[in-house]
């Protein structure tokens, strides 16, 4: 029982990190219907920037701020270079060009920072509490609280601000939104920026929680974010959080009770089964299909 509760707690913390990554990813997907295959690599790259700043003795929060600005800038440039020209193309093109962007970022990170896994010095609290033999760490609490706070903030942002209203207009009908004078390009850009910034927060939490920053975390991040998004429902903010948590628990319990050698298999088999049964994700609504 203690083992089970422990697995659940650890899974929830890991899941919250996935959720933050999934939500930025999901915003782009919900809005434009593109799989942003470079999302994971944006998060990897900007987390490395934070690490580089910290190594240069920039105070931690300053480094995070720099990383955030860099993430927004990167997200917007990626949108400008690789997606905007393809917004009206067939579905394959933007997905594929995103793969290209991901490769460029991955290669750049490897050349700049090397292939080794780097530890991540963090000022986040390191303590832990024991409750009836179950361990809860301070960092897990920080992660869960951050995720919850961001979930609330995003919900407010999307449903109660003019920015959010415009976004929803674009999601429902891009050409019409353009006709009624919404500057689609600026808004899409802003979504990429926000998505990348959330990615950075997720990256910093990931790096702190696992004490590691490494080049291939980009691809893993993309796959986990996608899986979380699908589990929770593509295009839905609440769904990203539900999906992230579900994925974290799934991996934790799967490795704990089935086999740690088949962790990827468990994740992807669940993904496939969910997609077969509910092609729009567990809690997904039918978003305006762009066939």
């Amino acid at each position, binding site marked *: 029982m*203690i*083992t089970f509760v*422990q*697995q659940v707690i*650890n*899974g929830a913390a*890991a899941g919250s990190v996935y959720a933050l990554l999934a939500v930025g990813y999901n915003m782009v997907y919900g809005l434009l219907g593109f799989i942003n295959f470079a999302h994971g690599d944006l998060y990897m790259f900007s987390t490395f920037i934070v690490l580089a700043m910290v190594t240069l003795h920039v105070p931690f929060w300053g480094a995070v701020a720099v990383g955030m600005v860099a993430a927004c800038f990167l997200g917007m440039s990626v949108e400008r270079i690789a997606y905007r020209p393809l917004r009206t193309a067939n579905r394959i093109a933007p997905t594929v060009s995103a793969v290209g962007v991901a490769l460029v970022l991955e290669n750049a990170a*490897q050349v700049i920072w*090397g*292939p*080794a*896994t780097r*530890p991540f010095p963090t000022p986040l609290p390191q303590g*832990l509490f024991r409750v009836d*033999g*179950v*361990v809860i*760490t301070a960092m*897990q609490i920080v992660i869960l609280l951050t995720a919850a706070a961001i979930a609330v903030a995003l919900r407010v942002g999307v449903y109660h601000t003019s920015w959010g209203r415009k976004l929803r207009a674009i999601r429902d009908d891009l050409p019409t939104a353009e006709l009624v004078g919404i500057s689609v390009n600026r808004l899409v850009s802003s979504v990429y920026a926000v998505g990348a910034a959330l990615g950075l927060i997720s990256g910093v939490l*990931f790096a702190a929680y*696992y*004490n*590691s920053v*490494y*080049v*291939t*975390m980009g691809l*893993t991040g993309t796959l986990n974010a996608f899986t979380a998004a699908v589990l929770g429902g593509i295009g839905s903010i609440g769904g990203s959080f539900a999906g992230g948590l579900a994925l974290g628990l799934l*991996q*934790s*319990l*799967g*490795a*704990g009770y089935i086999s*740690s*050698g088949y*962790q*990827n298999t468990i994740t992807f088999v669940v993904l496939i089964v969910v997609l077969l049964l509910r092609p729009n994700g567990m809690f997904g609504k039918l978003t305006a299909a762009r066939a």
Partner: protein
Amino acid sequence: MQRSAFWSSQSAFRTLGRLSLVGLVAVGGTAGSAHAGNQSAANGAQRAGTIEIASFGALTGPDAVYGVSSLNGQRLAVDEINASGGIDGRKLALVQYDDLCEPTQAAIVASKIISNKSFTAAIGPVCSADALAALPIFARTGVPLIMAGDSAPQITTMVKEHAYTFATRLSPQDSQNGPELATLAISVLHKTKIAILYSEDDYGQGVLAAAKPVISKLGGSVAAQESYTPSTTKDFTPQLTKIAGSGADVLLLLGYYSDTGIAVSQLARAGVSPNVTLIGSDSTAQQPFVTLAGAAANGVYLVPFYSPNNPSAVNRQFVTAYEKAYGSAPTGNAVMGYQAVYTLANAMRAGGSSGDLAERIRAIDFEGPAGTVDFDANGDLKGNPATVLRVSNGKLVADQKLTIALEKALKSD
């Protein structure tokens, strides 16, 4: 002209034509640049009378850490030898090739090396599967090959079966390290309920396979056995939580420091009691392990075949030079690369012109930073006694008492 043009937009004929054109250009380019490559290499060799050594291993990709480390060690050795006048006045020169730790690439690289007649010998690779793919190709010309980071026992089998006398192996084997870890846990530290965390690759599986029979022979039991995907898994809590629940009193870490370091940093979070003794395999025993694991690394036992703390004069000199050149302590791969070059250099110096270079390499016997370099009939390094290290205040410290106890326990088996 319109031959049943049901398919009017793409004629198969045109495609075939294009194909051949593409093929021709490629063949032309291939031949041209290969020619140029050989030419420049030949010129280079004549110009300076250098001794060219091919060095291959993973220089990019996820396993690049090991390849680059090994290459650093090789470079340091080459620089030292050249600074002291080379071999009979001839300088050494390394030509490096990247095999990405993919067997197909290793086969290609090996064929590239044997195609170039100017190489005296080859050093590499760092992944066992690569070595297994490359060995049959080196067998065609018999260029001496010094393997500097491949621990799989299958290599011995292959070398023995095909009588690959050109090949020698500098790295200790999984079959040596596994029993050492088990013996330390059971016979020396008297812990019998054993949990194992191993990397799901040939290294982790190899050490595990070698350790398990010894565990049961010595009367221990495996309470938990968990794997992870090397360089991909970062969340070890599911595995560790299971280990915590298994009631084991010792945990063997069979994997690379970049993974086990992170795993150890997550022990407390998974509820693993601080009373569980940790023992790390050879590949874990590197200074960066401590950096990654943080405070949790304190008290961990490590059983490497090489320790930078080794007090021998050769080693002290090597460590100082390495730290000066690269700004960090040498890893196991670095010392193997370093010793590989010295093995070659010493063999060349030793023999003058008599006998075959591969034979002379096998006959070598000298003190390197990691201990005696001396090969058995299969070209494997005769085992050096293991060193037991303990992490104390973030430093790897040799534990003399345990080292002697382990040596004794191993002998008595």
